[in-house]
Structures are given as C-alpha cells and as structure tokens.
C-alpha cells in the first residue's frame, strides 16, 4: 500500500501516513494539484511559511511501463501567483515508486535551519543540510553521493532556490548522477528553498518493483505501448537520433521561431544551433546524441554534449534551451548555449525563463544582442545573489520592470516557450488559458498544428484553435502528467488508438480498478477544474488568460500575422464558473 510522507521542517519530523481513499488512484499532477488545493490557502504568500511543496511520482512509477518515471512538483508558484505543477525526468520518481511513496509533502517554517531528507526502505529521516547548502547542483550531487552512496538518486535545489529566486528550479539526477533534469517552471525551487530543504536523497536499495495487481494484463498493455512507441517514426527515429532540437529548423521554416525577444519569427543563423548541428557535434566529439533521462526510457531524446576537446559540458541540451538562450537572444554559438545550459542546471534556474529574461534584458540594453560571453558572466550574478542577479534571476516580468521594457512575452508572469503564438495559434491558446501560465507542454498544440499528428488545423488562423487546445490540455493532464509517462509518448498515442488505450489498461492492471480512456480524459478535465478553482481563490481572473497586447498589435514577420483569437473564445476554454468546492 502506497503512503504519503509528510515532512514538517518546523518540527524537524518526517512521518508516513495513509493515502486517503479518494486519492488512492491519483498520481503525479493530479495528486500534487489536489493536495495543494486542499492544504494550501490560495492567498498564502508563495515564499512564506504556509506554502507547501509536494513531490509526487506518477501512477506507473517503479513499474516496467516505458518512460514512466516523470516526477511532479507542486506548490503555489512564486512566479505566477497561481497553482503550479512542474515535472521532470530523472531517476527520482522510479525510486519513489519502488519505495511505495505516493507523495512527499514538505511544510512548515524551518526557522533558519536547513535539511537533507533521506528516504529508504527503512524509513525517512531529516539530516543536517548545512554541509550541502550553498553548493551548486553539480557539487551538491557529488557530495550527496559521497555521503549517502553512489547509487542514490537526488532531488535538490541550487543557489537560486536557496536565495528564493522566482525563476529557480528543482533538479533531479539522471542515470549518470548529473543534476541535469529539472522541474523548471514557475519558481518551484524557491519554495523548496523556503522550506530549508536542500535535497531529498532516495535510496531504493533492497526494494522491489512497484506491486501489480494483474500482472498478465499489465504485461499485455505494456507490450502494446512499447510496440507503439518503437513503431512511430517520431519516437523511434526522429527524437532518438536528433533529439528535440530537430525542431529548430522546422519551426524556423514555419516562421514561428521567436527571435530577438519575439520581435521576429525567423532566425537567420538557425542552422548553427539546429538539431542537425548538435547531432554532428555529439558524433564528432565523443558525446552522446541519444540518451535516456530515466531508467526505462525507450525514446532517448536527450543527449550528452562535449566541448571540442571532448570534455563533458552538459546533458539535455534540447530545443527549448537552445531556442531560449540562442535565437531569442540572437546567439548562434551552440557551445556557449551548452555552457549556459550547464550553468542554469548548476545554479538551478529554468532555461526558458532565463532565456526570456535575457531577451528582455537585451531589449533593455543591459547587454548586446548575441553577447554570449556576457550572458555567461551574468549567470554568476544570479549564483551570487547580487543586486544585478536579483534583477535577472526573478523572471522576465521582473526584468522588464527593472530595465523599463514593456515588450515582455509572459502570461501570468511566466515566460513563453519556443513557439510564437502569432505563427502557431493553437499553442497561443494554451499559453493564455493554461492554469500554469505560458506553458507549451500543458497542451502541445504544436504537434497537431505543425507536425500533422492526430489531425490538423491551420496554424495561422484563429478558427479551431480553442477546441484543439482544450482537448490537448485535458489529455495531457489525464494521460501523461498524472501517470508519470513522458509527454513524448503522446506522439504515438495521438495517432494509434491501441497505444492510447494501453495507458488506462496499465493503470487498471496495476491498481485492480477499471479505468477507460474516457475516464482518464475526464480525470484530466477534473485536474484542470481543481487548478482553476485554486487560481480563482488566489485572485486570478479571466484577465490573466490573455496574451500581452503587443502580440495583437505587432505583425510577426515573415507571415505578418497578429494574435487574433477572441477573448470570448479563450474564456470558453477556461469555462470561468463559480469556485469548485473540494470535498
């Protein structure tokens, strides 16, 4: 029977409790959002003592289901002011699943103390965090392995989270022990840091795989899903060989690659930072062009990037990072981008938000366009929490105010990712209406708009985008964010009915329940309902479900289109209604 681990940093205690019956078949985002909505006052100060941070593996964590090791991190976001679920790959979720831990809730006022939480099959304990506090994520991960054993997985915050930066992330370690996977968005690292928690060390030695109620049924569904993933060209060839960076040239040719802080839709130096260039550099320099971020991954979209001397630089140099620190900043130096990726991982900040911040700062004259060397220098200001570091470590919205820039591409104060909403309007609807702020993974309309997966609408017109986004947001929440399955399984699942049906089959077999595709879609809609209720309680309204005005006024080259999806249509997606009462 899975349990919840409740950690009170004020009392210095860590105790297990039963999972409430109504939460027994919730995992990942469904569980974090439900717990946050139940236990956190939406009007609480996100960095104050009454906010909580919840870590939850997905429903299939610790099993042999492919790509089932995503972990969700939930709280009230210090960046958006609303509810947040950020998720990450890495080793942590699978280990927690094997230990039978459904969620870890961290609460209380640490009163200046710092901790490391250690969990194993023998229980949980709070250790002194002082030996590790202040270290970058890479040094901290090495020190934690030295202290607790070479095979532990860790969840940790870097200096940015320790300093309470609203752009700070929560890092998890990959199979090589590198803290290169991040629950990046929304400042979740600051909430973990505010709890005085430097790291969670997960030692699953001696534990078994997560129990399965119906092993034969599970195995049949698992094989179906594996066959679907391995037969789909995106998940078996494209992502495997070129990673997500393959999107650079595709989105650039679509005229929707945000360039120069969303002033343009094409980057004339895109080839220099493309997936094809990254692939070649990995091949030439002894890196890995194909790499899995978690045990059980069969897609291997990640990479290990080396410098010209063949020395490790970073891992997981992928599309969003390359775009944010590259095209958005007029930076065509992929080696510098990889170095910046390492620094973001080490300091513990979200690369999308950091790139958005740099774009705004460049518009404001803090540094020149494409000045990669200065970008690297400025990262140390964030690490050291200087006055300048505070201006650029708290997100693009904060930087806009600091540098007098109004051309700030955020929704709910969270930076937009690597698709211009004027060129791909479906993703614009998701940016506007997601409970998470500008978030591309919440309803990945790009797949249908551009890549022709699971149907199509015209990316340049408003018609059809709202229904598309709403359906994808519900599906994402229900099928992927709550099961812990990697979102890239959506490519085969959107195209292959058998693959989609395998997901509720896996859950049904594991838990001994009967859940259908329709049930999971409904569960996804319920998660969004809970989140919208929290956001309403936090004071967010339909006014927050809008894109910045400049998108409606400034035509985007080369298509010269503006954002023109009507506010009334956006409000239908959110179905603004009285606050949902949670029983």
């Amino acid at each position, binding site marked *: 029977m899975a349990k919840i681990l409740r950690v009170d940093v004020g009392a210095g205690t860590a105790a297990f409790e039963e999972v409430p019956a109504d939460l027994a078949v919730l995992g990942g985002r469904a569980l974090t959002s439900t717990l946050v909505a139940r236990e956190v006052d939406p009007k609480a100060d996100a960095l104050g003592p009454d906010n909580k941070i919840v870590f939850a593996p997905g429903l299939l964590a610790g099993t042999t289901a492919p790509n089932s090791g995503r972990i969700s991190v939930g709280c009230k976001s210090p960046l958006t002011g609303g509810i947040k679920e950020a998720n990450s790959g890495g080793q942590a979720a699978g280990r927690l699943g094997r230990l039978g831990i459904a969620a870890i809730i961290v609460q209380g006022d640490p009163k200046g103390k710092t901790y490391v939480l250690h969990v194993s099959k023998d229980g949980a304990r709070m250790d002194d965090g002082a030996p590790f506090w202040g270290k970058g994520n890479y040094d901290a991960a090495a020190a934690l392995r030295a202290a607790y054993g070479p095979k532990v997985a860790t969840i940790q915050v870097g200096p940015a989270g320790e300093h309470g930066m609203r752009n700070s992330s929560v890092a998890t370690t990959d199979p090589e022990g590198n803290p290169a996977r991040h629950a990046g968005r929304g400042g979740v690292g600051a909430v973990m840091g505010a709890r005085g928690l430097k790291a969670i060390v997960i030692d699953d030695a001696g534990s078994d795989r997560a129990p399965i109620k119906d092993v034969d049924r599970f195995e049949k569904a698992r094989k179906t899903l594996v066959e679907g993933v391995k037969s789909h060209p995106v998940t078996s060839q494209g992502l495997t060989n*070129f990673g997500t960076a393959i999107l650079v*040239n595709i989105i650039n040719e679509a005229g929707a690659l945000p360039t120069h802080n969303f002033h343009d839709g094409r980057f004339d130096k895109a080839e220099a930072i493309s997936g094809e260039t990254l692939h070649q550099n990995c091949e030439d320099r002894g890196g890995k062009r194909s790499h899995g971020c978690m045990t059980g991954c069969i897609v291997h979209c990640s990479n290990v990037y080396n410098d010209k001397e063949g020395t490790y630089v970073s891992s997981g140099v992928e599309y969003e990072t390359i775009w944010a620190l590259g095209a958005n900043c007029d930076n065509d130096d992929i080696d510098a981008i990889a170095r910046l990726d390492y620094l973001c991982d080490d300091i513990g900040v979200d690369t999308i938000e950091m790139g958005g911040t740099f774009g705004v700062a460049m518009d404001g004259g803090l540094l020149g366009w494409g000045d990669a060397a200065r970008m690297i220098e400025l990262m140390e200001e964030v690490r050291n929490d200087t006055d300048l570091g505070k201006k650029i470590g708290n997100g693009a919205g904060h930087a806009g105010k600091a540098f007098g820039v109004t051309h700030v591409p955020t929704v709910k104060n969270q930076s937009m990712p690597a698709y211009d909403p004027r060129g791909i309007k479906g993703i614009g609807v998701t940016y506007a209406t997601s409970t998470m702020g500008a978030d591309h993974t919440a309803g990945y309309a790009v797949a249908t708009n551009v890549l022709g997966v699971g149907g199509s609408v015209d990316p340049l017109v408003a018609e059809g985008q709202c229904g598309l986004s709403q359906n994808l947001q519900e599906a994402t929440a229900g099928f992927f964010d709550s099961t812990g399955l990697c979102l890239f399984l959506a490519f085969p699942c959107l195209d292959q009915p058998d693959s989609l049906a395998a997901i509720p089959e896996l859950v049904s077999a594991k838990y001994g329940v009967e859940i259908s595709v329709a049930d999971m879609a409904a569960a996804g809609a319920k998660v969004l309902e809970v989140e919208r209720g929290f956001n309403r309680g936090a004071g967010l309204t339909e006014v927050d479900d809008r894109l910045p005005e400049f998108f409606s006024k400034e035509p985007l080259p080369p298509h010269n289109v503006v954002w023109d999806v009507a506010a009334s249509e956006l409000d239908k997606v959110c179905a603004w209604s009285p606050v949902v009462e949670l029983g």
Partner: protein
Amino acid sequence: MRVTVKLGSILRAKAPAFVGGEGIVELPGEGPFAVSDVMAALDIRPEEVNVIYRNHVLVAPVARARDGDRVALFPPIFIHFSQFYLERKTD
C-alpha cells in the same frame, strides 16, 4: 528556374554538396514547377517527405514553386500521417 532548398536531417544525404542542408536547385525553363519536380531533381521520393514549406507556408507537393522561392523539405521521422488529412496549400 532557381529555387533555394533547405533539407532537414536525413534528407541531407540527397545533396551532400549543400551547406547546412541548404543549396540552389535549378530546373530548366522559367517555371513554375510543382514542388514535387524540385524534389525529383534531388532524387527525393514523395514518401521521404512529409512537411514542405514554400516561403514558410505549409504546402502540398503539387503546389507551385516559382523562380526565387524557398522550399524546405522535412522527412517523416518527426511527423506522421494519421487518419486525418493534413491541411496544405495546393496553389
């Protein structure tokens, strides 16, 4: 007729002389020609391409390319046909 062609990932093997997957394809006469004729000039079969941009607009292989156009071709490894049709301009 001369068009600029951008090839994505594995399609670059069709034109190793291109730099960064980009180069000029020349067809006899003034054109216009179908995009499929541009593909044929590089020995690219229809099943090897699933996304075509002509001057940054998504088009079908029958769409016309004119002198000076830019045509970008991407293989199916990052997209896939589904039971739904893909909207593409055909003119």
